[in-house]
């Protein structure tokens, strides 16, 4: 096998900055690395010696790197070496000074070619823009509806709409910018559109799903637990956060998902626990779970008073249980404010 060697100078984001090709001479390929113009691979790194190291590929395709008495030596797989014997390079990547180099040979197994079936890739630019447009339209529509229903004075509607949309735009813009900055640091590209798609999709899904749950809750009189809404939001935020992390850091998808799920759910758990702790001890908390919806949407009739009234008989037992709970958990509460 003819020894052929390609030396790639990598950027901080593992992208190839420069590529050098070397042919076989006497069954071996070799080159020198350093700042000197006499070297085969010339680097502009102040932590690299004039002639810093030598890379060799023998007839069997084995790659070795030798430090040529430099001060900083070479670093292979996190281990620094100085002078002496040639060190075998298994992973193909090593470091001189602050520069990372990758050595490729004919022994390298190249990944198979990916078939191009004519369609666009999922994360192609066009798809991303379409997803962004769809997410933004749905998000804005839901927000406009929310503002419209909560503003009873027609003359206040335009002000409320502009204020809310500007606030939404500002906050999401800031959020996207932070993630774009993280992507820039990690990969050297901002991925603005991708992060915007994640935000728009998450906001749209959360708004639509929580809105639908509210309407169904009110229409059917389900009186769902108040935890349902925050839980849906936490799920959406988990997915969005994981997607942001995958696109803004070199971490693996599984780790990103773990972090993305952990953070919102820990926050949710702390908030719910604090809230429940306060409500469980408060003599003023009623816990109204009903949602008023337009009568046309009310799909289920209520039960008769004759059926409801007997059902109240266990309230005394529950009230006594609440009393036993606070006597146990909160025997000496703080003075009331009006005391």
């Amino acid at each position: 096998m003819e020894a052929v060697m390609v030396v790639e100078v990598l950027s901080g984001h593992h992208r190839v900055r420069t590529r050098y090709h070397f042919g076989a001479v006497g069954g071996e390929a070799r080159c020198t690395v350093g700042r000197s113009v006499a070297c085969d691979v010339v680097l502009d790194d102040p932590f690299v010696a004039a002639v810093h190291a030598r890379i060799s590929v023998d007839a069997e395709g084995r790659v070795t790197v030798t430090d040529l008495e430099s001060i900083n030596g070479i670093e292979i797989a996190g281990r620094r070496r100085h002078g002496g014997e040639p060190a075998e390079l298994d992973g193909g990547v090593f470091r001189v000074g602050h520069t990372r180099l990758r050595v490729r040979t004919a022994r390298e197994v190249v990944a198979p070619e990916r078939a191009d079936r004519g369609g666009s890739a999922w994360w192609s630019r066009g798809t991303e823009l379409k997803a962004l447009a769809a997410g933004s339209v749905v998000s804005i529509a839901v927000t406009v509806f929310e503002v419209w229903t909560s503003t009873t004075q027609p003359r206040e509607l335009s002000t409320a709409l502009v204020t809310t949309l500007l606030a939404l735009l500002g906050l999401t813009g800031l959020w996207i910018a932070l993630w774009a900055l993280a992507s820039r640091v990690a990969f050297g590209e901002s991925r603005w559109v991708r992060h915007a798609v994640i935000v728009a999709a998450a906001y749209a899904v959360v708004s639509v799903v929580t809105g639908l749950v509210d309407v169904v809750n009110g229409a059917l009189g389900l009186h769902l637990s108040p935890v349902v809404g925050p839980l849906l939001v936490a799920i959406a935020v988990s997915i969005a956060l994981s997607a942001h992390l995958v696109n803004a850091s070199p971490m693996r998808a599984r780790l990103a998902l773990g972090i993305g799920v952990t953070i919102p759910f820990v926050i949710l758990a702390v908030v719910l626990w604090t809230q429940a702790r306060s409500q469980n001890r408060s003599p003023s908390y009623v816990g109204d779970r009903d949602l008023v919806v337009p009568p046309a949407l009310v799909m289920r009739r209520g039960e008769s008073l004759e059926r409801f009234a007997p059902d109240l008989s266990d309230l005394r037992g529950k009230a006594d249980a609440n009393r036993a709970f606070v006597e146990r958990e909160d025997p000496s509460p703080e003075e009331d404010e009006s005391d």
Partner: protein
Amino acid sequence: MNRAGPPGRAVARGIALVLLGVTCGAAQSRLPAGEADARSQPVPSAATASTAARVILDRVRPSVIQIKGFFGTNTAEAFHGSGFAIGHRGVFVTNWHVVSEVVLYPEKYRLEYRTAAGATGRVTVRAIDVRHDLALVDAEGFAPPPLRLRPNAAIGGERAYSVGFPLDVGLTITEGISNGRVEDSFEPRVHYSGALNAGMSGGPGLDGAGNVIGVNVAGYRASQLVAFLVPAEHAVGLLAGASKPPLDVRQARDEVARQVRAHSDAMLAALGPKLPTQNHHGYELPSKPAAFVECRAAGDPAPDQPVSVERIGCDAKSSLYLGRNLQPGGLSFQHQVFTTRTLDPWRFARGMQAAKGSDDLFGSRRQLAPFACKQRNVELGGFTANATVCLRAYRKLDGIYDLHVRVVSKNGPRQGFLSSLIVTGVAPERALAFAKTYLDAMQWKP
């Protein structure tokens, strides 16, 4: 209505801010037989009135004491009120709210008396009447002649006097007019138009001849010279039980709870088995159920509001004073009726939802346990509504509960109501029965 003492807390709450000594009119030298007779009486001169006050004060001075409450071993007082001799062996009457802290927290408080002459001694509680805000106490080592009682005789227009120790400034007499029984009050009260200040609670209310017609109990904070006395006959009734052994402090809480429960039962019974209603934009809603229940209605006069709101509130003014932030025995309900001509059903529903959020209830964490609630959509008289019924127990008093009912209509696209009821210090079965009565009264009659 606010109690006139004890001043330690009453002053802080701004109770009875009327000034002392501002009196007008004249004293009558003898009791009128009736209002017609009273009109024929000559009006005495101002000098005669002042003389009468001086004579009455001199007469009652030996029989009136200041009752002081102390926290722990402190020598500085925590609160004080007044009392007067009613029985021959050192038995005095005062207000329940003057001694309530000692009865409910005997391990924390103690009572002492101080006479007008400066003698002091220990006070023990003998009997209580929470409902009428009266208590009998024994003053150790002090047995002055009792004042003469004149039950069932408070007459409107009669000259009257009130004696006590207001604001710790010494024995004081104020002069005013008895306006007879308050007609629209669940608890019997004599309306005394005269100054009644914090610290005078438990002192005697007297007629022109120096006979006790009532016991000082309360004054309105924001009103001038509107004060109340507990009619003397209730002191007579309590005295009749004074031969029994003194109140066992270990069972005092049970006794207080029993009396509160009896009061609430009587108050709910007075409302009758069915509540009267009034139509508000198609909804028949509970209205003034008895003469003693005070109702107010108000609306938003601004015509350009998209949602018009009518607020109707009723209060039985029947709460009993047990201590700070603890006044069970009350009943109140409010309706908010919403209508719109311009809003669509979506925005109207959202507006009602927002209005629900402001319906907060007060409750002392020290005194009350959290609510236990049930919420359902129910079919009331011809319409669907959401009803929430809640009970909460008292932490230190067994057998009494607070009832809260909240109703939200769900049938009107452009009209609806929120209704809220609270009954405090009531037996649970009675409370839930009244909740049904309340819901039963509501109907849709456009």
